[in-house]
């Protein structure tokens, strides 16, 4: 199955990169765009056939390596079975 993990900075954690991009967008005239925050998209394939088993492993991978739980949150979706 194909998995898509989205990693975001936690709410309330300042995102200087997002802020810089926000400012650049405003300079370009995109004044209606606000609160830009930048995260990461991680994509991978898994050999598991069983969805529940895969979800368990994805959770573990996210907590152990793919995110730093002190500053980041994650969500994921299984895009192809």
């Amino acid at each position: 199955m194909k998995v898509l993990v989205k990693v975001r900075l936690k709410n309330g954690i300042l995102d200087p990169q997002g802020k810089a991009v926000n400012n650049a967008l405003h300079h370009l005239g995109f004044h209606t765009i606000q609160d830009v925050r930048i995260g990461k998209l991680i994509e991978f394939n898994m050999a598991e056939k069983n969805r529940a088993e895969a979800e368990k492993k994805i959770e573990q991978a996210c907590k152990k390596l793919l995110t730093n739980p002190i500053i980041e949150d994650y969500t994921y979706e299984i895009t192809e079975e």
Partner: protein
Amino acid sequence: MKIGVVVFPGSNCDHDMYYALKLVAGDDVHFIWHQDHSIHTYQAVVLPGGFSYGDYLRAGAIARFSPIMSEVIKFAKSGKPVLGVCNGFQILTESGLLPGALRRNQNLRFQCKHVYIRKENCESIFTRKLQKNQVLSVPIAHGEGNYFIDQDGLKRLIDNQQIAFRYCSANGDLGEEFNPNGSIDHIAGIINEKGNVLGMMPHPERAVELLLGSQDGRIIFESLIAGE
């Protein structure tokens, strides 16, 4: 004192650290390859600066799971001295040996310059020869040195006297203008609760000879060997 400097793929301050330790702390300094499993013969271990594993994913995130790190974690938990500088500090926070996390510098720029840091009210193996409020001139060189910890964590650091260094002026004053990366509460370095693990963004190993502008970093290595 037998001291080991861990070498990860992408470490680039390992030789500077080796040189500084030899100069200040004596001859018994060795490199430890990241795939080694045994460090029990060492009395202290140093994680040097650099870009271990290319800083991929997050700085220090992959190095934290290299074979040597499970040994370093045991070593630290047994109370033996572990120093992490720059990328070494990032690896220590990723591995959970030190609280908090290091994020992208607030102004998004890689900062490479001399700064001043002030010894705070904090006792550790690495700072025992420093006076309270002593100011050191040491260089920084990092893009992700913006220390973050939540408010409860910050309170614990303060209450337990775990803040080793804060960025400051030449006179030891605190201020946003002296904080090069946006670190919370001007934090430049912290220790663990036991006081045997120090992580700091500034590079004491680059400040051991006047020829290079400062020898203020020596006192950290002198402190390390002072208990022998």
